[in-house]
């Protein structure tokens, strides 16, 4: 309530001196600084680094791996205790498992660390300076040293250093758009005009910009106690929602972990029943867990997401949180801020009315649009008024800068008019010099007009020209004639009505309208050198000639309507949430397509049918504009109801708290909500949203901190790119996961057969880890580069409850069909390798106990040859390698079929995805390296294998390919059929 206190009370309250302009005592200021802390926003508390790292090590799958490693260690310990030192396999495996967890953990941590660093680079490191008066002297000090009670000066171009109660002001205007969303500059003056501190004119807020004028004031709040600081802390109180992809992955990890334990447990019991010793059964359990858990999956997902994040960064979307990439893809509602996101955040002349006709000006950012007909005499007159009756001017030295980008000193409307005339007329500064100004009356709120009197360019013409602009109705009052096609016609009722219609039309567009008129003064009455007196107004201010109306608006960005349209076709609802006036908001919403053509609000229908608003059937209205006042009286259910009823919504005059409520209501409807915003006022909603999108240029630090994603070019259209990429990555992750899951079955079946049929082990744990973490990683990542199969931007956003990342069809198809084929391939190759070395398939059955007896040094094979244990072990490694190669060969086929889920691979293009081709080659090279690198047998249990064993799995690989093509053909030909339901994932 500091704004309601008198200056004297304030002096007393804050022990300062304003009247004598002495400011505070610097020692007192020092004490207060110690008490209150520096004047800056405390950064939100981050999670400590070690907690972040620990989190990476303690995921669902990781825990399972820890358990497996522990079992290995226990098994090794018991073996040691029994004095059996022959094999350290269990120890190796434990070390390998721990290494896998730690390495993938480090990798995840690094990814997170990197994305955090992107944000750190945004922080402005240059300390802000402020002019403060202490002990009667002016100082420039760092703004963070300011304390309550300090007397500070601000001027145009400064950032307000704290919440300031204005004491004196000269034409001071501030931009509160980051706080309230209002794009119009607000006047600041010493008088208290409103009981709410947010509305009153005598408080300037921390971090807002002072646009023009000067002011002095007392600091009443610093740091986190400022209005901005309080909003920022509101944001930090909002819980971070889990991203949909995180939920998906968790859901899927739960299933995997559950199944792994189920399988492991079942076979543990089976093994115990069959009569294996407890320790052996435990090791089986561990091996099944290792075989079944897709160790490389989380790394794959992370890499896929970060690849997309990188791709997005090139398109000006910087992603802070990797998972946010996909969230954008599943977004079904975008709550967009208006100012700066949908609009250009600068006033621009949009319409003109002269010659009884509305002309449209070019409002595009780069002035590429169509211009109107400029041949009329009236236009020339109007243009003259616009150029002359204007106090704004360009900052010097900007001749090479394109006009829309030049910096102008002056208020927003005058800036707009200046730029408009500069573009249409040419050099305005020089033009003004030719028409020397004799006198001028600036705009004030009582007159509501601005006037100036100029000499004419032609020295032989002694007349003066009076030009005037202002509120249209006031201007019209002063006019007696109207200029139509260069002719001055009397302003009769007919013309007045024409004026009214035009004024209403333009006002209805949410535009700010100004009227323009002029008068050539009688040279007899006002000869050259006449002393004009602005106080007495010794010149006519009525009976003028009306030239036209010009309306201005903060125009939408050129790319936005298209982007909104794309969102619409992509099934995404765009809701505008702004602090601006309802009429302006509605007009912008209509012009960018948020309210589509032909959609009406309840009020529109009422006006059209000439019935009271209450009688209108609300369901008929597609569009709805709700303002903050209405919102305040609404229950949450009511809001949800409204959101359900009207597909096209605009919220105007909303407060930060209300934005939060709107986002929550959308989420209650089951929508995945993206919120865009730039101001501090947006940060709570940004945080609450499933994905917060902040603006990189206009955005405040608080908004960027709260957001998950930052648009570097502040362009709404970039969001559409983000949505597209997000959807693509969802599809591609699905393919990637399907690919990764498939091989778990051929990894698992060897153990099941080993335990139940007692054949020599076909595939070892270490080999499984190599498949998971070495050879198959690159191909699964390469699927992230796959092009979309169809126009994903014409589909509805996925239903987070129904369209899961990993659904039943995907798992079943991967596991029990493709996985099964791969298992058969592996066993075929296994039996081939065994038989060709002397062990016929039937002999292998039941051989396990003898095979693994390390005392049995003369075990006979099918031919009667005798094998030592060491020889058998190498033979076993050969089998591992053969099985490994079989899985690899089938996985090559698998990655090819995973390129598409519906289309034929031939339609998608076999070699279109270059990365995938490289990945396959890489996979083969890696396989060769593992097989044929010397030393491998004793380190990683890989043996050099014969060439034909590479070929044995080929028929199965071809089968996989052909089978999947048949599946896809069926899915394409018979959508909705039984086949489609069961086999489309």
């Amino acid at each position: 309530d500091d704004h309601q206190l008198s200056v004297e009370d304030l002096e007393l309250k804050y022990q300062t001196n304003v009247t004598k302009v002495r400011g505070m005592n610097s020692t007192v200021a020092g004490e207060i600084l110690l008490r209150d802390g520096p004047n800056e926003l405390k950064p939100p508390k981050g999670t400590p680094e070690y907690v972040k790292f620990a989190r990476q090590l303690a995921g669902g799958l990781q825990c399972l791996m820890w358990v497996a490693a522990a079992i290995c260690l226990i098994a090794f310990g018991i073996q040691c205790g029994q004095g059996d030192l022959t094999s350290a396999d269990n120890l190796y495996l434990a070390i390998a498992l721990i290494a896998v967890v730690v390495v993938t953990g480090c990798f995840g941590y690094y990814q997170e660390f990197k994305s955090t660093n992107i944000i750190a680079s945004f922080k402005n490191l240059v300390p802000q300076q402020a002019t403060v008066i202490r002990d009667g002297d002016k100082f420039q000090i760092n703004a963070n040293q300011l304390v309550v009670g300090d007397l500070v000066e601000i001027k145009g171009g400064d950032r307000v250093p704290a919440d300031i109660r204005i004491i004196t002001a000269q034409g001071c205007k501030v931009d509160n758009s980051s706080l309230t969303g209002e794009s119009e500059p607000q006047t600041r003056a010493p008088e208290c005009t409103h009981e709410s501190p947010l509305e009153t004119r005598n408080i300037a807020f921390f971090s807002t910009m002072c646009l023009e004028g000067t002011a002095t004031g007392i600091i009443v709040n610093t740091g986190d106690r400022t209005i901005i600081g309080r909003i920022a802390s509101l944001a930090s109180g909002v819980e971070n929602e889990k991203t949909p992809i995180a939920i998906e992955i968790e859901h899927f990890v739960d299933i995997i972990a559950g199944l792994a334990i189920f399988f492991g447990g079942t076979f543990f019991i089976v093994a115990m029943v069959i009569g294996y010793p407890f320790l052996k059964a435990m090791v089986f359990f561990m091996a099944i867990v290792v075989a079944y858990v897709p160790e490389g999956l989380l790394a794959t997902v992370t890499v896929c997401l970060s690849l997309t994040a990188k791709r997005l960064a090139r398109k000006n979307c910087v992603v802070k949180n990797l998972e946010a990439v996909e969230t954008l893809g599943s977004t079904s509602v975008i709550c967009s801020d208006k100012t700066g996101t949908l609009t250009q955040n600068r006033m621009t002349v949009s319409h003109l009315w002269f010659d009884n006709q509305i002309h449209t000006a070019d409002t595009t950012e780069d002035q590429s649009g169509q211009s109107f007909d400029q041949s009329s005499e009236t236009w020339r007159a109007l243009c003259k008024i616009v150029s002359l009756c204007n106090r704004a001017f360009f900052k010097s030295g900007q001749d090479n800068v394109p006009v829309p980008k030049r910096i102008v000193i002056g208020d927003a409307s005058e800036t707009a008019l200046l730029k408009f005339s500069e573009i249409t007329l040419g050099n305005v500064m020089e033009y003004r010099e030719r028409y020397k100004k004799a006198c001028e009356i600036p705009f004030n709120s009582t007159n509501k007009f601005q006037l100036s009197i100029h000499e004419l360019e032609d020295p032989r013409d002694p007349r003066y020209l009076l030009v005037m602009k202002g509120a249209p109705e006031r201007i019209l009052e002063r006019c007696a004639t109207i200029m139509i096609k260069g002719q001055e016609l009397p302003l009769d009722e007919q013309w007045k009505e024409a004026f009214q219609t035009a004024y209403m039309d333009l006002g209805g567009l949410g535009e700010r309208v100004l009227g323009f008129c002029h008068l050539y003064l009688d040279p007899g009455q006002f000869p050259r050198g006449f002393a004009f007196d602005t106080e007495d107004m010794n010149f006519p201010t009525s009976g003028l000639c009306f030239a036209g109306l010009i309306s201005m608006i903060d125009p939408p960005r050129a790319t936005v309507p298209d982007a909104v349209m794309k969102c619409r076709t992509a099934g995404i609802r765009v809701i505008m949430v702004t602090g601006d006036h309802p009429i302006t908001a509605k007009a912008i919403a209509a012009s960018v397509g948020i309210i589509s053509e032909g959609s009406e609000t309840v009020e529109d229908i009422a006006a059209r049918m000439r019935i009271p608003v209450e009688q209108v059937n609300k369901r008929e209205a597609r569009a709805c504009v709700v303002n903050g006042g209405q919102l305040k009286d609404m229950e949450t259910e009511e809001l949800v109801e409204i959101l359900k009823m009207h597909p096209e919504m605009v919220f105007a005059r909303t407060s930060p708290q209300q934005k939060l409520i709107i986002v929550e209501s959308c989420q209650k409807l089951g929508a995945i909500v993206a919120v865009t915003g730039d101001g501090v006022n947006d940060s709570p909603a940004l945080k609450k949203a499933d994905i917060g999108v902040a603006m990189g240029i206009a955005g405040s630090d608080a908004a960027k901190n709260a957001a998950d994603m930052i648009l570097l070019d502040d362009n709404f259209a970039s969001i559409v790119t983000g949505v597209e990429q997000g959807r693509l990555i969802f599809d591609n992750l699905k393919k990637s996961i399907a690919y990764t899951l498939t091989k778990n079955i051929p990894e698992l079946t060897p153990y099941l057969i080993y335990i139940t049929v007692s054949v020599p082990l076909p595939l070892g744990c270490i080999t499984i880890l190599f498949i998971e973490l070495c050879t198959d990683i690159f191909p699964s990542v390469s699927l992230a580069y796959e092009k979309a199969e169809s126009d994903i931007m014409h589909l509805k956003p996925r239903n987070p409850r129904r369209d899961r990342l990993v659904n039943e069809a995907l798992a079943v198809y991967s596991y029990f069909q493709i996985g099964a084929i791969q298992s058969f391939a592996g066993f075929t190759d296994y039996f081939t390798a065994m038989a060709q070395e002397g062990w016929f398939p039937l002999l292998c059955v039941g051989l396990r106990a003898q095979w693994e007896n390390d005392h049995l040094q003369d075990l006979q094979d099918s031919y009667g040859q005798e094998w030592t244990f060491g020889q058998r072990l190498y033979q076993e490694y050969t089998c591992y390698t053969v099985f490994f190669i079989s899985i690899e060969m089938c996985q090559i086929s698998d990655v090819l079929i995973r390129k598409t889920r519906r289309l034929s691979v031939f339609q998608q293009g076999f070699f279109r995805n270059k990365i995938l081709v490289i990945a396959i080659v890489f996979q083969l090279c890696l396989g060769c390296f593992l097989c044929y690198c010397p030393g491998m047998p004793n380190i990683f249990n890989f043996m050099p294998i014969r060439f034909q064993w590479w070929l044995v799995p080929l028929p199965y690989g071809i089968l996989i390919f052909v089978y999947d093509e048949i599946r896809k053909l069926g899915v394409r030909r018979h959508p909705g059929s039984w086949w489609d339901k069961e086999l489309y994932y």
Partner: protein
Amino acid sequence: AGLILLFYLILYMFLAGMFSFCIYGLLLTLSPYTPTYRDRVSPPGVMIRPYLHGFTIAFNVSEPSTWTPYVNSMHHFLQAYDDNIQEEKNIECPAGQYFVQDGAESKEKKACQFKRSQLQNCSGIEDPTFGYSTGQPCILLKMNRIIGYRPGYGTPVSVNCAIQKGNESALKSVDFYPGNGTFDLMYYPYYGKLTHVNYTSPLVALHFTDVKKNDFVPIQCRLNGEGIVNNVTNDRFLGRIIFTLSIGM
């Protein structure tokens, strides 16, 4: 649901069929007489008898119950080598050269006689306890069979034994039968169990006549000959064998 079960039934039947077909095709390519590859099984490994449950032969001379299992095992193993059985089933071959039998692969192959009596003191004929009752145990050494393998490439493979590690004096003397501990060339090559039905692996008997008593004596016996590998660290039974004698008095 029924439809999907039927679908899976057909799919798996098809897969099983394809698998069987592949295995059938594989078996067609295999010869029943000679393995496709023999690289994993050669060079040969070595095994000893008696073999009960490990490579430690521990007994106490004064307690027959500690060594009778070994003796029984030896007798059981040597049954096939009884002179009359050998004479009845196998032929006498010229010593000192490989017994190569040409002709069809499927033709039954003859085997050369290896008579138990050739083991002399370790034959168990004169001393049915194979020296265990006197603290001078016999151990039989056997080279693993490999089809077509010709050990020594013309020179018979011989056996020598030494203390694996520790005091050399613990093993003072070993006698080898037959003939200084060599595997005669006539027993090779081996033609596989299908055609070489009555084949009996040649043996070398090690008679440990003077071993340190009441101690664990680790002994390593190696094959020596061309093409024999006996120093691989990973496989301690390749071309050599390590066992421990512990003879209590």
